[in-house]
């Protein structure tokens, strides 16, 4: 007897209904989907795993344990908030694809076997790209194509790894895998691409900022978090993740400081925050894993909030470059306030959500004796505050007055941001709300006098550095520019290579054509010479001349006869 529906099914059914619903009803229906899904989740939590048979294998479509439920709750919450944010949108494409995308993410986190995971994985890739294309600009369309190519490759690696794993072990289970076998390495790489590991990260910073305002909030909530879930499920305690995660936390902050597009700054900051989660998964202790998944939970909320604020700026002004913005606090004071709450949360200010989750990863790194990693993460924490905590609100809403006079965004956008901000503060003030739904028991206490003090010292002196650099004129100005990154490899080097190859091919073709032409010309010329209208054979002879020839021929015959 089925007591609950598979969570993804509700979203797919919802997407189908929304696809055929009239314009007026679509926003309401979109909101109802996560609400109904949340109600259903209550029954999923009561424990009702769903398996179906496929040939000789049993697919576990729904596996509910504390880890999958945490992400299930998170994804329902995120869909609900972002759907409020997107209520004013009258774009069937975005509304349908965002529901399919969220459903895919739910399918992935509740998947109990690798085949179900693969299907959900590819569904996410294919549906999410429409959130980029929905911007309907040439840049978005080419960025979306690059994004799709990389996402699909990640899915293919996952499929290859899964099939290899199944043939080796005979087990479909999506459980702990490790990187000891080729299958494990393939799946690890597939997760790594979606998680934006260094060097395979540029799909994220390339494509996300080209998405629509609400599209980018959706994108930031699901893809990387599903990858984090996958790593936590299958590769917890893999030491390589500690160093990969540290690199992820470190390198984007340098890019974020000099990036002009403020949503791209947040894309870099997304990689940086995922880096903390990856380190936690690599350490693999209960404290570290709790830290990783709770930070994923908080990141969806505060990064979502910051992206909503920047999306509101983009929606209202049509601009998102730091060099073109500034002084918006005068006309968008409420948005400014929400943005500052998001900034305080991502910077891990005491009483805001980041404080209660990131510190678990830091504490776990210290406990396990990774002191270099710990120092680098502390550096990254100061860096986060610098680029996401200060730079984002400062260049958008303060800095020099750009002269732009606009209005607050539509009420639904403000409500969504308000709810997001309230959750950030609520979790920061009552961390037990979040700790209660974590997969492992929490013994960690975030609010100790020395933790609060040291964190405040770190943040205040980082801010002081910003103020000093700014007043002294040392701070790099926002400049309209493109910064080279790993995507240079395929957008420039690869393109150049392809163009060179294309040119070489065209040249070879041309040479071949010319050769054929020359030889066929020669052939025709010779043929014309001998068989053409003016050739020896086609020449017309006078009768006398012909008679002479005949006499000569007959003469020759006579001579031959007598010989």
């Amino acid at each position, binding site marked *: 007897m089925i007591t609950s529906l598979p969570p993804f099914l509700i979203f797919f059914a919802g997407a189908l209904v929304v696809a055929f619903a009239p314009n007026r009803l679509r926003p309401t229906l979109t909101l109802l989907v996560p609400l109904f899904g949340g109600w259903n989740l209550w029954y999923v939590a009561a424990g009702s795993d769903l398996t179906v048979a496929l040939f000789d294998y049993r697919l576990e479509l729904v596996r509910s344990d504390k880890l999958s439920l945490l992400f299930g709750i998170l994804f329902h919450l995120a869909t609900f908030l972002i759907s409020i944010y997107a209520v004013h949108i009258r774009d069937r494409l975005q509304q349908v694809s965002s529901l399919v995308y969220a459903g895919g993410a739910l399918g992935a986190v509740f998947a109990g076997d690798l085949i179900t995971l693969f299907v959900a994985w590819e569904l996410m890739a294919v549906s999410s790209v429409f959130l980029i294309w929905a911007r309907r600009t040439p840049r978005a369309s080419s960025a979306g194509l690059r994004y799709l190519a990389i996402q699909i490759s990640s899915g293919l690696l996952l499929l290859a790894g899964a099939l290899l794993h199944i043939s080796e072990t005979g087990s479909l289970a999506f459980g702990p895998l490790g990187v000891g076998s080729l299958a494990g390495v393939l799946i690890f790489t597939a997760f790594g691409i979606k998680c934006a590991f260094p060097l395979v990260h540029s799909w994220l910073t390339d494509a996300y900022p080209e998405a629509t305002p609400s599209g980018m909030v959706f994108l930031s909530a699901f893809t990387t978090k599903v990858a984090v879930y996958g790593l936590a499920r299958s590769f917890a305690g893999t030491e390589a993740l500690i160093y990969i995660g540290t690199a992820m936390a470190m390198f984007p902050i340098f890019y974020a400081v000099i990036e002009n597009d403020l949503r791209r700054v947040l894309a870099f900051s997304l990689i940086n925050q995922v880096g903390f989660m990856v380190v936690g998964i690599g350490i693999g202790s209960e404290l570290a894993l709790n830290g990783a998944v709770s930070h994923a939970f908080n990141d969806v909320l505060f990064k979502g909030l910051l992206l909503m604020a920047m999306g509101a700026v983009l929606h209202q002004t049509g601009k998102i470059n730091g060099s073109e913005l500034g002084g918006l606090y*005068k006309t968008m004071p409420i948005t400014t306030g929400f943005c500052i709450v998001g900034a305080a949360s991502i910077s891990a200010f005491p009483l805001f959500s980041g404080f209660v989750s990131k510190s678990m990863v830091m504490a776990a790194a210290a406990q396990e004796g990774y002191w270099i990693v710990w120092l680098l993460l502390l550096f990254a924490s100061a860096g986060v505050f*610098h680029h996401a905590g200060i730079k984002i609100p400062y260049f958008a809403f*303060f800095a020099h007055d750009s002269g732009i006079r606009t209005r607050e965004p539509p009420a639904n956008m403000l409500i969504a941001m308000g709810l997001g901000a309230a959750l950030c503060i609520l979790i920061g003030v009552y961390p037990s709300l979040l700790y209660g739904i974590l997969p492992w028991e929490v013994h960690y206490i975030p609010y100790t006098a020395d933790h609060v003090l040291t964190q405040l010292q770190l943040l205040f002196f980082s801010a002081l550095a910003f103020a000093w650099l700014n007043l002294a004129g040392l701070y790099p100005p926002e400049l309209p520019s493109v*910064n080279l990154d790993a995507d240079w490899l395929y957008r420039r080097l690869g393109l150049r290579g392809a163009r060179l190859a294309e040119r070489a091919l065209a040249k070879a073709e041309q040479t071949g054509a010319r050769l054929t032409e020359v030889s066929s010309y020669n052939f025709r010329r010779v043929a014309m010479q001998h068989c053409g209208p003016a050739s020896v054979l086609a020449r017309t002879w006078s009768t006398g001349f012909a008679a002479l020839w005949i006499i000569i021929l007959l003469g020759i015959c006579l001579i031959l006869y007598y010989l």
Partner: protein
Amino acid sequence: MKEKAWIEKRRNVVLMVRIFLAVSIALLLLDLVIHRHELFSWETWFGFYGFYGFVACVGLVLAAKVLRKLIMRREDYYDH
């Protein structure tokens, strides 16, 4: 010329930074009062976190300026 907003006047900005500096120093001095149960020896050094945060951010920005020299290109770099 329109009157500048309060927050835009340099005098007020300097005032705010000074208040901020005072708060920061107060936080630094609290180091002497509050007991630490630290995991690494350097955590007990006076003002370690403040110093680290300040140096990290200045280093970050200066490094980013150098990085800009290496990787910054025109906005339409990829467009053709």
